[in-house]
């Protein structure tokens, strides 16, 4: 009986310790992204039609990220959403009437993820 409680106490002590490690942002991933650069944000500005990219944190798995596609798909002007989990980038195809940056950022937050910034596509 005592051994059971001892093991349970160890589980309880170790796991919150692991969980509390992530206190700071890991910018190493973000700094190494070659394909795009961050754009100064004017959140009331409408997105350009065509492909836009947004940097998003917390896209922890293929299936979790599908939730993001479903929620963003409800925003008027969002034609399709593609995810690059490796870079933490959401690629959004926009048609007219284009949504504002704020609308897209809000949809990302509503889906349970953290919007970081919009990116300027090379050659775009």
């Amino acid at each position: 009986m005592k051994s059971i409680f001892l093991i349970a106490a160890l589980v309880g002590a170790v796991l919150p310790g692991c969980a509390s490690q992530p206190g700071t942002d890991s910018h190493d991933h973000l700094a190494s992204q070659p394909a795009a650069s961050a754009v100064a944000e004017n959140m009331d500005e409408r997105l350009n039609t065509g492909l836009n990219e947004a940097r998003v944190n917390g896209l922890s798995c293929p299936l979790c990220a599908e939730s993001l596609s479903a929620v963003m798909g409800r925003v008027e002007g969002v034609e399709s959403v593609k995810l690059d989990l490796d870079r933490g980038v959401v690629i959004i195809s926009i048609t007219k009437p284009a949504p504002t940056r704020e609308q897209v950022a809000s949809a990302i937050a509503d889906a349970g993820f953290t919007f970081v910034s919009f990116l300027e596509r090379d050659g775009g």
Partner: protein
Amino acid sequence: MQSSFQFLRACAIGLIAAASTIQVAAAQQPTNSPSATLPGPGLFTYRPMFRFDKFSDAPGGADGKAERFRFMNHVMYGVAPEWGLFADLSFVDRDVETPGGDDDESGLGDTRLGVSHRFYRNDFGPIETFRAAANFSLRMPTGDEEFTNDTVNPSFGISTTTILGRHGIGSSARYEITTGATDSPVDAGDGLADHLMLAGSHLYRIRPESYAEGGNVAVYSQVELLGHFETNGDASLDAALGVLVEAPRWAAECSVILPVAQDLDERPESELGLALGVRFLF
């Protein structure tokens, strides 16, 4: 035993029918313990699961042995950002062999209705995140006579999910205030004793090493520790080993649950548990 297979076959047909109508799946979390994952607002997650358990005693303290099949259904609906409502519903088939004869019973189990609130989220990298959720639920006495404890039992709990690169770490605790009892308790919380569940999990992404654009099938190994402690002195600790496979449109999971330590007077000792399930988001 034949009725068990008929029951299993009926459940399988229902599951396949449900799967054929649903398009998208979700999400990364361990098989046997809660996590801090929620569907987005307006979205449902549905997790049907088959569970087999073998016991070395008969329920109710009688000599003998027992086997149980359950078809468990977990549905969660995102009502708002960071808020979800959930329901657990199960169908049970139980074979009990005692010196006095065999008994085969089937029916509905109790239903659990609850609300979950993710009160903390720190996405600190492209795939890295730490999330914590609190939940409150009521076990409703909807089960058939053999499988209900006849009263409404409230429970409250907390769970955390951490994703660090290829590692997923989960922890959870839930306390259930038990106000009624089944005639023959099988699981913790079935008898007239409060139930504390403590669980920890580690998922490791075996493949891919890193995600490529467009998404890949991800395969995870799972290790869980599941502790059950009751105020009547019963306590058990199980280890669960399993595999979770995720693709952009479906997920499948299997888990083997083995007892590590058991000190039980009021419910039968477990020999083995098997869980097999799928997940959908729609």
